[in-house]
């Protein structure tokens, strides 16, 4: 059994104010989707960041990339700060030799969300792809 499966999958169900989180090491796919405006983002994302830290400690790099997909509707400024922390963790993974890719998914006509993605793309040092989709597209 690999270290990845030992840690297990992280799954958090969505609420009106917090996103659905599925970090699946076996599928090499980490997904964050929905709304994110918890009253206290540190409290909500604390366990997520802790999980990611433990994952990084145990992870053995492999050639296949780990993909982090972010598909948000509304998010508040404290989430915006936490997102950067999450992205920084993927930088650490990359520094450890693990290829990573961040995919920022937004509705095609939502230029506001596209701009937010462009800001992050400029701020982080990992491959960061902006993916425009149409409404209803998954």
């Amino acid at each position, binding site marked *: 059994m690999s270290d990845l499966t030992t840690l297990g999958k992280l799954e958090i169900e969505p609420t009106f104010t917090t996103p659905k989180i599925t970090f699946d090491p076996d599928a090499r796919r980490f997904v964050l989707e929905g709304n994110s405006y918890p*009253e206290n983002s540190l409290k909500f994302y604390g366990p997520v960041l802790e999980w990611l830290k433990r994952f990084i400690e145990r992870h053995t790099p492999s050639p296949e990339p780990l993909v982090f997909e972010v598909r948000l509707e509304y998010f508040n400024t404290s989430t915006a700060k936490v997102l*950067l922390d999450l992205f920084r963790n993927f930088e650490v993974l990359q520094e450890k030799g693990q290829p990573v890719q961040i995919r920022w998914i937004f509705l095609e006509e939502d230029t*506001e969300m596209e701009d937010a993605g462009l800001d992050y793309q400029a701020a982080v040092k990992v491959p960061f792809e902006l993916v425009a989709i149409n409404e209803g597209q998954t």
Partner: protein
Amino acid sequence: MTVSSEYRVLYHHEGPLDMEVLPLIVRDLDKLLATESIRPPLRRKIVSSLIELAQNIIRYAVQSEAHPPSLLITRTDKGITLAARNLVYYSQEIFLQSYLQSLTQLSRPELEALHHNTLTTGSFSDSGGANLGLVEVLFKCDEFSYELTPVDELHTWFTVKASFFLQNYE
């Protein structure tokens, strides 16, 4: 010649505001703006600004049954205005006055730099906020104003108005 400008109240909430109520307001406002044919980029700016202002109220406003907070969204031919009003202690007035004066004097590039620096290097408040709410609103809207109006010896109404011009999103 007088140009008429139709004024309509799109949404008004007056009463207790917490994290149970806020998602309902967000959902209703998002739907309402869609039926008003407000395009997604502007819709996102308005709703995101409302979230920041409402969460500031939830975190920092003085709780008072006699003077509950309010959120008012109005529309004219020119655009949409979001007004958030809540009670603060008179003692907070000086801080708010100087903080907002300094923010509103910043040029667009200075505001962008402050936004970027707070996002990348700033710390969280004790209540888990990013200390960016008003900066974010100022950053997103086309016109910003605020008022501090005394209520009694101890309290002051704090009102923030953020306007979004439709012509910028046509």
